[in-house]
């Protein structure tokens, strides 16, 4: 039988920090090799003319100069920012509403929660193909349904009208809120019941409870989800735009930044140019996150979390 001493870690392994570092190591190695390294190479390529075949040619800021005068890039940037401004708050509001609606234990709530979560489990391309059918202007169920009571002129042309196509992409994103919903549901269920009892004794109305109790208590998580969704919004417009609208209607109605990057890198073999656009995309995300963080801090100082 081993003595107690021999089971103790030896030498430097005794240090708690070393143990933590060792446990983190596999993740850090993966992060460095698969994210940080390629990201650094991408940043470097932003200053190069590179097609993945011939050698790299350093061209300074020429890619950024070209981006600044590119209509396609301007449109893609505007589309991406517009998408984030509309889709992110809507997604969060819907997830919050559903979490508050479905946090109680009542009959059928399990099925309802599963229903809300399920669309997020569908593979992205399959989800896109499904919507390609749903939004089919003539034969799609969405327009078939609308045709039952709407005037023909007011029925959206999801795939041929620029504004309708953008709305369609936002609509698609509103159903994949499973993760956000689950996090908010758990947050709501973890809130202390006595606070609500106290509010009930004080005679607070439903809205007052929401405004003064639920919202401030859930605010840290909501803030975090807002940041996360903003970062993600630059990415999750990619598959719908590629599969459903193909970046159109022409010229660039639903060409978002990721699609712009993808086309230039992999269809036109302009990796340097695409890397420059990626860098701009990252800066935009950083700016949006910074602004939100400032807002959250201001809110936090009011409520003293």
């Amino acid at each position: 039988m081993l003595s107690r001493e021999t089971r103790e870690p030896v030498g430097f392994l005794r240090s708690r920090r070393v143990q933590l570092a060792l446990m983190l190591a596999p993740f850090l190695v993966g992060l460095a090799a698969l994210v940080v390294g390629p990201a650094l190479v991408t940043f470097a390529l932003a200053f190069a003319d590179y097609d993945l075949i011939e050698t790299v040619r350093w061209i300074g800021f020429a890619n950024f100069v070209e981006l600044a005068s590119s209509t396609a890039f301007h449109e893609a940037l505007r589309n991406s920012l517009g998408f984030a401004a509309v889709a992110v708050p809507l997604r969060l509001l819907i997830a919050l509403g559903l979490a508050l609606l479905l946090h109680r234990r009542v009959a059928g709530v399990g099925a309802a929660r599963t229903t809300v979560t399920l669309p997020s489990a569908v593979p992205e391309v399959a989800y896109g193909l499904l919507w390609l059918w749903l939004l089919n202007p003539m034969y799609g169920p969405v327009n078939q349904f609308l045709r039952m009571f709407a005037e023909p002129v007011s029925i959206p042309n999801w795939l041929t009208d620029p504004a309708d196509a953008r709305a369609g992409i936002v609509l698609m994103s509103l159903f994949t809120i499973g993760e956000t919903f689950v996090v908010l549901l758990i947050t709501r269920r973890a809130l202390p019941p006595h606070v609500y009892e106290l509010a009930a004794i004080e005679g607070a109305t439903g809205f007052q409870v929401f405004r003064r109790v639920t919202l401030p208590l859930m605010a840290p998580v909501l803030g975090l989800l807002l940041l996360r969704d903003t970062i993600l919004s630059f990415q999750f417009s990619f598959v719908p735009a590629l599969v459903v609208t193909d970046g159109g209607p022409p010229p660039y109605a639903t060409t978002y930044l990721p699609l712009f990057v993808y086309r230039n890198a992999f269809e036109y073999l302009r990796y340097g140019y695409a890397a420059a656009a990626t860098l701009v995309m990252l800066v935009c995300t950083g700016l949006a996150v910074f602004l939100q963080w400032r807002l959250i801090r201001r809110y936090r100082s009011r409520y003293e979390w």
Partner: protein
Amino acid sequence: MMRLARALACLAAAALAAAGCSSSAGDAGPAGTVSLLVFGDPHELAAYRKLEAAYENAVPGADLRLIEASDRKDLITRLSTSIAGGKPPDLFLMNYRFYGQFAKRNAIEPAHDLLERSTAIHARDFYPQALSAFQVDGRQLCMPQNMSSLVVYYNKALFAKHGVAEPKAGWGWPDMVATAAALTRDANGDVAKGADPDAMPGAPVPTGPPPVSYGLGLSPEIIRLAPFIWSNGGTLVDDDKRPTRFALDEPAIEALSEFIDLRGKHGVVPTDQEKESQDDEARFAAGGLGMLMSSRRSTTTFRKITGFEWDVAPLPAHRTQATVLHSDAYCLTKGSANKAGAWRFVEFALGKEGATIMAETGRTVPSTVEVSRSPAFLDPAKPPRNAQVFLDSIPAIRATPAVSTWPEIEDVANGILENALYYGHQPREVARQLDEQTRSLFERGR
């Protein structure tokens, strides 16, 4: 060091988008393992699998590995990332309009010397129009597998039902418009006006019951418009050999105007909503199109049609007969580990046996004269009965200009033409937009 650079480049590609470094051939067998990158719909891919089986049967120990991409853009992505990853496929099949970007970047192993030394295939066996589309400075880079052109597929049953004369060689653009109008019908079988010329451009069709069948299917694309510009004696670009911009002259603008009128004035092609709901090939196969302008590619799909008979006719002409080349070629990659094996496959695929197999599947108009004139291609028992149309069109074939940035140019131009057709834009304004929005792309392609 080179490997490291390539690995880093590939990682960079992964950071740009979710794409990996695809790998290619594994261990070589006695006759060699050769990987071939192709794309196509299920019917086309079935044709390549048939060729693969025949090759492996004919050459002992040979192992052909098909890498199947979903579409042309996917193929380009896979090809570029695999070249960057240092493991390109040995061969890829690509259209002459898109191979230029790889040719310019020196990623293709020229076939010139291999062809000169070959005892199995010879340059004289091929149609010169197909060979020249894959030549740079007189040197053969890739070997053409097919040489199709734009033709008119038509639904014989629909023509018979409405008592409309079938299209025949020598017909003109006005004949085509009249035929298409006579075939645009509503649910009662009456001739339907598919457009209101007085309505605002882009407005939905307001007059009477909407057509259930249209006379013509025609994609608003530069390769569909080009033959009519040439047919009208017009120019598409300023210099066919070294183009620097789109330069549509008066006859070209006239042809463009006629093209745009198909929707706004005549209403004989489906609206954009209808086209997004059901693409032209599906609409034709469902009996909802009288005619469809397409290349040989549609044949494999249409051979599955059981409900009606169909055939092909030459393109209508404005002044002189013209059509546009559709041709794909086998290209060897510079980084191929088994160039000898790859060339051996090319010799088989383009030799009599291989070309016959592909011709029988219906997918290709053979690039070799002998097989194109054989029953494998002309067999009247297999539709289209009038396959001779593809061969008769050959003297009138012209190719789109060779520019390495042509894929980008086409994307921009097709977007402009799509809006022009469906929203009735002014032809002169369209010509101006074509020039303005693609000039920098031409410049980068030089």
